[in-house]
């Protein structure tokens, strides 16, 4: 909570901007001159065929890698300069689940959210896991869960970390119909509350948002 409040000076100011971004992998240029801006309540869907650099773009937006050219700005300041302040306002869920096989579901959720700066109690963690459809499985080690259930454990972080920007790389992979609907509702609620979402997906999903941007990578 603390980080969230500190990183949002005023609702209308929040903005994620990409300016002339370029990505190079080896000798190959994946994309160049990518520009976008995303404001509070905005959804950006990154589309493109396999290997077009969707994941690379998302990793850049998180600050995990540097763009070959261009700059990413959060509220007008470069994310490189913001560092911790930006990370406190952003949640990234990538291809890797970010869960430890040997830890239980609830331990995983509590530890990963504590690392993200949100210290949650057992009750709050149980509530979030119940909502995401893992009721009764809190005490199981993650290694016995199915792919879809692991995905749910990772996504449960969205419920407890009150960040304004969500960067989701294929969040719907391995999820069943009910879970996809649940995530759709969750995203819509987040957008209604003034949050921002950047996501990639190959599945057709209809999310209502104040503004929806489609970013096509060739």
């Amino acid at each position, binding site marked *: 909570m603390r980080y969230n409040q500190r990183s949002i000076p005023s609702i209308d100011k929040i903005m994620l901007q990409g300016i002339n971004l370029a990505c190079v992998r080896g000798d190959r240029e994946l994309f160049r001159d990518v520009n976008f801006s995303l404001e509070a309540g905005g959804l950006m869907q990154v589309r493109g065929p396999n290997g077009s650099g969707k994941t690379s773009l998302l990793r850049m937006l998180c600050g*995990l890698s540097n763009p070959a050219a261009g700059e990413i700005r959060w509220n007008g300041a470069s994310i490189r300069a913001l560092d911790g302040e930006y990370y406190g306002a952003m949640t*990234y869920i990538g291809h890797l*689940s970010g869960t430890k096989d040997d*830890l239980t579901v609830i331990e995983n959720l509590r*530890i990963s959210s504590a*690392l*993200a700066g949100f210290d949650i109690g057992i009750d709050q963690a149980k509530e979030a896991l119940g909502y995401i459809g893992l009721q009764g499985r809190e005490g199981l080690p993650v290694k016995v869960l199915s792919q879809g259930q692991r995905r749910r454990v990772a996504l449960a972080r969205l419920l407890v970390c009150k960040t304004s920007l969500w960067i989701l790389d294929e969040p719907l992979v391995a999820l069943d119909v009910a879970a996809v609907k649940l995530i759709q509702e969750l995203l819509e609620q987040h957008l209604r509350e003034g949050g921002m979402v950047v996501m990639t997906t190959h599945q057709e999903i209809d999310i209502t948002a104040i503004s929806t941007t489609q970013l096509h990578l060739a």
Partner: protein
Amino acid sequence: MFMWIIKRDLLLAVRRQADVLTTLFFFIIVVSLFPLSVGPEMNMLRTMAPGVVWVAALLASMLSLGRMFSNDYLDGTLEQMLLSPQSLSLLVLGKASAHWLVTGVPLVLMAPVLGIQYDLSGEALLVLTAALLLGTPVLSLIGAIGAALTLGLRGGGVLVSLLVLPLYIPVLIFGAGAVEANMSGMEFDAHLSLIGAFLLVSGVFAPWAAASALRVSLE
């Protein structure tokens, strides 16, 4: 946050005891091989004891370095740590501390028992344990840099030893030197003070260096 990382890594170590035990048994076996191969010549054993125990501790500590970050790297938790609003150096310090608690502390506790095989006097055993207590955290801290640099590389295990072992040399010299000084009736305080100084310096710089290396490795 620091405590969360330590708690997490200790919990993981408890769930995967095999990893911890292999390191400890490696240390025990290597140290025990020497008296068996050299034979019961007390004078020779006493002279070589500090060096053998330290070299074995170095190798044992290095054996587990590969695991310090690689498991977290493979399952994506390391990525999440990099995206934490907390300082990454602090998180690395937490991981190095957990590594020491899991691999270093058992070595320190086992060393006096193994020292008996080498006919060390009570006081020499005490000095050996004190030197290891100060020196093993340095091994974990410096090792964190090597582990971070070689993360995700093929054959990283060999490379990490080439990178890290030369950096271990000062600790080895003064660690073994403290015990030798004590056995020859000299003061050993200076040796221990120097290892303490290494600990302070590496405690400040190693987490920072390892954190920078991690950012590069994950890019």
